[in-house]
């Protein structure tokens, strides 16, 4: 089994949490071994959090749209989710919630009512470490999904194919593992649902009238549950889901041999997530050096992670909410039903420059457009939390190593030291000199604008 070394711990936390502070890294090291860390902290069941607000149980109605309440509540829901990310500790539950949100991608603009998106978000939390097959069954009549992929009001006699197609193409099997006819037949099985009030109701009168249907060559009187069972019997299914996990947590170009190993574990554990995640995060494969820092941070990892690393206690969540849109990862509003593709798709000349604008804002207290950012970094306190804060060269190295996972060359370290000293000599450095805070801000800006900072 791989060992709990400092590089391995950083690699694990960077991939499974939304960043981490120096304290959290120490805390993780304190578990002594990787299996104890994974079992007792990373995959520990934690309590489902309280609802953000009583509105979650009010009956959806048009008046909420017209009055602007729905928009306000979507904001509250998103803030609430950010607060979950900040208080996740060493549990990867919230990372799994985001993974599932991205996998079963639904857009708030089409769903319209935040009550439904809240329900779906809690469904993801319930199944974060749970049974994936059961989740697929439940999401097939989840109000958010019914609305988003047009299962709502779909009648068996002229079914809407949207959900049936994406269920196979994007949620379970992948393209090429079903026929157009499989989709048409499945759409009949999946019909008959209507969203009413806070839940979805099945009306047999709106269902198809055929005695039997043939799907994947099997003829039967399918219901949603037996249809999903049949889909999970297809060989492609476990591999498709494991490949997605591999790309999210290990490397964006999957190693098919390891994906096959994961799929075997997944099948033999009846599609339970926890044994699969345990297998993945205790494998030698996951910790191989080439994978370290080979992933481009997603915008939430960049934003939440920067705040955690800088130990900013009261983050400006409005800043996160607004910047997430510009960085192309507004929570609850993925770009389409395939979700966010990730890795290089995060980066264009636009988003790359916004990333720099965001990290600058934590240091200057101003956004790129001049808006004030609250919870600005206490520069000197942060600097003095490093053991060698008064020794310039050591201090710079400690800061780099706490913020950047990619190996930084000596030449670049020297450049960053010069940035801090700004013409003075190292021997004169102290956090107690006048202008020390401005110099530290310049150093931090430079580090966080390095392309290396975007990798985890």
């Amino acid at each position: 089994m791989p060992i709990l070394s400092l590089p391995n711990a950083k690699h694990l936390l960077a991939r499974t949490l939304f960043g981490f502070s120096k304290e959290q890294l120490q805390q993780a090291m304190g578990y002594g071994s990787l299996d104890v860390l994974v079992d007792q902290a990373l995959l520990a069941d934690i309590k489902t959090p309280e609802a953000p607000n009583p509105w979650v149980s009010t009956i959806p109605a048009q008046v909420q749209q017209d009055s602007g309440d729905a928009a306000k509540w979507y904001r509250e829901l998103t803030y609430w989710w950010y607060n979950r990310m900040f208080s996740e500790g060493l549990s990867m539950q919230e990372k799994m919630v985001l993974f599932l949100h991205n996998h079963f991608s639904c857009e708030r603009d089409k769903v319209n009512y935040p009550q439904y998106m809240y329900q779906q978000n809690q469904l993801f939390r319930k199944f974060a470490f749970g049974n994936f097959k059961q989740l697929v069954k439940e999401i097939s009549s989840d109000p958010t999904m019914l609305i988003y992929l047009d299962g709502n009001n779909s009648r068996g006699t002229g079914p809407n194919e949207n959900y049936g197609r994406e269920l196979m193409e994007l949620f379970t099997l992948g393209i090429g593992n079903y026929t157009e006819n499989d989709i048409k037949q499945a759409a009949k099985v999946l019909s008959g649902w209507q969203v009413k009030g806070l839940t979805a109701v099945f009306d047999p009168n709106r269902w198809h009238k055929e005695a039997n249907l043939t799907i994947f060559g099997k003829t039967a009187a399918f219901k949603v549950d037996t249809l999903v069972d049949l889909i999970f019997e297809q060989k492609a299914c476990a591999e498709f889901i494991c490949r997605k996990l591999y790309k999210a947590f290990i490397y964006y170009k999957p190693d098919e041999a390891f994906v096959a190993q994961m799929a075997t574990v997944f099948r033999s554990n009846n599609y339970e997530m926890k044994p699969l995640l345990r297998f993945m995060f205790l494998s030698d494969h996951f910790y191989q050096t080439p994978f370290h820092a080979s992933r481009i941070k997603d915008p939430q990892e960049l934003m939440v992670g920067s705040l955690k690393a800088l130990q900013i206690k009261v983050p400006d969540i409005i800043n996160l909410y607004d910047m997430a849109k510009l960085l192309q990862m507004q929570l609850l509003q993925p770009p389409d039903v395939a979700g966010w593709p990730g890795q290089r798709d995060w980066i264009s000349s636009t988003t790359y420059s916004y990333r720099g604008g965001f990290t600058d804002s934590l240091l200057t207290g101003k956004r790129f457009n001049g808006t004030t950012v609250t919870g600005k970094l206490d520069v000197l306190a942060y600097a003095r939390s490093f053991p060698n804060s008064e020794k310039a060269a050591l201090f710079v190295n400690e800061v780099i190593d706490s913020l950047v996972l990619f190996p930084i060359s000596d030449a670049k370290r020297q450049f960053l030291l010069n940035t801090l000293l700004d013409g003075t000599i190292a021997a004169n450095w102290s956090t107690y000199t006048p202008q020390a805070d401005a110099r530290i801000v310049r150093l931090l800006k430079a580090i966080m604008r390095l392309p290396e900072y975007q990798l985890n």
Partner: protein
Amino acid sequence: MKKQMNRKAFLQQMAILSGGVGIGLGTVTGKAFGQIPAAFAGNAEAGKVLIIIQLGGGNDGLNTVIPAEDDLYHKARPNISIKKDAALKLDQGMYLHPSAVGLKKLYDEGQLCIAQNIGYPNPNRSHFRATDIWNTGSDASTLWDEGWAGRYLRTRYPEFPIALAKHPMAIQLGSVESLLFQSDQGGFSTVFEDPNLFYQLVSGTPADSDIPPATLAGDELGFLKQIAAASVQYAGVIRDGATKGKNTLTYPTSNLGRQFSIVSKLISGGLETPVYLLNIGGFDTHANQLTQHANLWKTISEAVKTFQVDMDNQNLSERVNIMTFSEFGRRVNQNGTAGTDHGTAAPMFFIGKTVRGGLIGANPNLKALDNNGDLKFNYDYRQVYSTVLRDHLGLDNVRTQQIFNSTFERLPIYRNSPDALPEAVTIELTAPWPNPAIDTTLLQFGIFEEAYISLALFDLQGRQLKLIDSGLRKVGSYSVRFDVNGYASGHYLISLSTNRGGRVTRQLVIQ
């Protein structure tokens, strides 16, 4: 899907970078980059601009260009068909969506060409795969990881990425770079939302000469550094272009209107960028589609119309052409939720002064559907792309063929297309007099049917040297005196063409 720039090329680029730019935190000017001038490989027509609008989600072609006289259409869509009386009449029994009023006006002026039933064999109905196919120009069964525009730009800018062109090689308004501009040399496009903001945000990005290690993580770092370098290079050029350029009228406040307003400023500000990508989403109309679809076409129509007038006002409309595409059309039959599911062939729009206005191709055949209940295509979408590359962007035959690995018969979309029907009876151009010409020569022409015309001087290679006269001309006789001073002695061509595809060419000798 994307390939990274190969390592050798990257090292070369970084070597050039390190020649002039050390590690530094200030905004780095582009001086350190090798620059290639705006002279192009091949026979590219300098100054031509292609604006591509991507209609994301799969536009319902049948409710856009409507066979409103076909009973089968109304039968297939009892709740969502658009009636003849409500729609805007085109030709051959086809009608335009009622909210596309501006486009209808352009159609009547001969500035809108609609190619019907565009698709490809074994069409894919997945949004993602189908979009990739349209972006790469591949067969349904072939996976390519370079965009067709990326391959075109690679022939046009062979030095990239070792040297960056003076102006952005492609511009995409938005945030997520499209596969369309990817090539095995890296992405060609600069992506931004607003010129000034882009410039401001890039300030402070360090450029450095460290060569990334040959590791998995190093490859990703190389990718990030390439984006950073191009951003630093182009942010100033784009801002300066936008500041220098202008809009001559107010654009609609829609997102697409805003995108067109920026493109107008950049073209008018002198940017030599040949390809722009704009986008508008929301076409995945599975349920209750009527209102949403109407709003989308209203938005497109208003933005495009405004842009065309603006280009006209600035005498830029001969250079610029707009093309639309979408990943697929939609099913002929409506579904049970007053919408339409994923389908196949659909029309494409071409807008500009250089197109041959009207419809191309037969109307959708609702009797002969494929076994899925979808339309069969008439023309391959790569015929369209090949035509745009050859007749608008001026790429030669051989290179066009290389881009698609195959020859595709061109469509008569553009007035200069040799396949366009002669229309000698509606226009006449008499031989210039005097000829040979020493100082000035008199060009006389007759218009027998009202049309948009252009009268231009060409060299014998077919390159346009001077647009002498253009615009809407009523029936009548016209004469224009043309000053030949400043042109080298030799043989030239004077050509009169109309938006309906007519063209008459006369030889002119300048002494």
